């Protein structure tokens, strides 16, 4: 799973969110490393929607402009959980080896 996709699904895991909200959340989650472009965001949403991982939630009008909220589907939550587990596992391996490397100096 690519980073933008992971960040979008992670943003929606907190609850339904509109496009601008997803961008700001992704920036915060990634510690400012990833600032999603609008084109990238809507291309990912188009793909995630046709894959059934994300669906439109509701529409609101703010400042005379339509805002659409998106939410994670159950399938999307399953996919995000699997990806999170995969990332956790590989991060655990990395952490373990880094610990061993540090300890290697003394042992």
């Amino acid at each position, binding site marked *: 799973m690519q980073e933008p996709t992971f960040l979008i699904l992670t943003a929606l895991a907190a609850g*339904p969110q509109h496009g601008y909200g997803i961008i700001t959340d992704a920036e915060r989650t990634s510690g400012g490393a990833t600032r999603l472009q609008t084109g990238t965001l809507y291309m990912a949403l188009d793909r995630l929607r046709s894959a059934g991982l994300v669906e439109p939630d509701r529409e609101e009008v703010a400042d005379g402009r339509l805002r659409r909220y998106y939410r994670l589907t159950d399938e999307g939550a399953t996919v995000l959980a699997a990806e999170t587990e995969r990332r956790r596992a590989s991060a655990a391996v990395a952490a373990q080896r880094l610990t061993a490397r540090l300890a290697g100096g003394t042992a």
Partner: protein
Amino acid sequence: MNAGRTGQPGPQGGDMPGGSAARDPEQAALERRYQRLLRCYPLSHREIHREEMLGVLLATARPGQRTPGLGQTVNLAACGLAIRARRVLSWLAGPWQDALAVVSLITPVLMLIIAALDFAVAVREAVALHQSLPEAVPFWQPGLVPLLGGPAAVMTGWLAVVLLGLTGRARPAAAVASIPLVLALANLLAEVMQLTGAWSGGLPLFLVTTGAGPVVVASLAACSLAFSAGPRRGLAIAGRRRAWLMIAGLSAGFGFPAVVQLANPSAPLAGPALSLLGVVAIAVAVVVTRVRSTAGWRVAVLVAAGLPLDLASIPFAGALAATVVLLLGNLLFALLVWPVAIASWRGRARRASRAG
């Protein structure tokens, strides 16, 4: 499926800055430029997302920004075009993949039947030639080898294609099928060059005897074997009975001239009525087989599109320009089915990976 709208706006659902500020001239100019860029997106996408995308674009713009900037322009254009490409791929992926699988079943068998008829005609011609000789000479002459050997080799090739395909080896079948296809393409090109005067020499005998088959059908056979789920899947989709009906109707249409020539060697092959009969035979086959089949009309389009081109060149044999146009049409169609098949195959792979 989530039941009901459970969600609250996320804790980070901040306000969009700049919504009402769109009234000032700088933002209005920026908005117009964004609107122009959004035309890269397909209409179906724009109708739903134009408003919200504009909102997000303006919300993420810097204060006082007047133009989208190069990076964002490229990003919007690329993403819009990518969504367009995705729509085309997914349109080609489903039913066209089914249609191509059916085509990979029926076209090799069709080519085998046509090749067998051509071989029979060649044998009959050889026998007639032998009988017309005044002296009693043995039938087997070295001169017969190219006349009979060419059609025999083509027939054997298509038999191999059919057998490989039906035993689940679609890719090797495609490789074998590409040999008669290349010969047919070369024969077609040589014919066009000869007709237009680009080349004054005669056609090489091996091309005349091996490349005479309908090039569009040969091309369909090779590309559908290479880029579809293969003949076995085609058989599962079409069903045994419907597959036989398609093959019977199509070979009746395409093989008509050869059958007539076999029955009566002096029959006027150039008669338009004859080609018309062939077209009617194929039309009947198409109408009969498309019933209750979702992929049916696509199979009909793929196979039947090459047919008028192939048969119409007979009545136009006298008119040079028309014949050249028809031959080039044949060539164009034979080449165009490849990108369609490849796009459909890639769309199918993408769809499968997305579902997984």
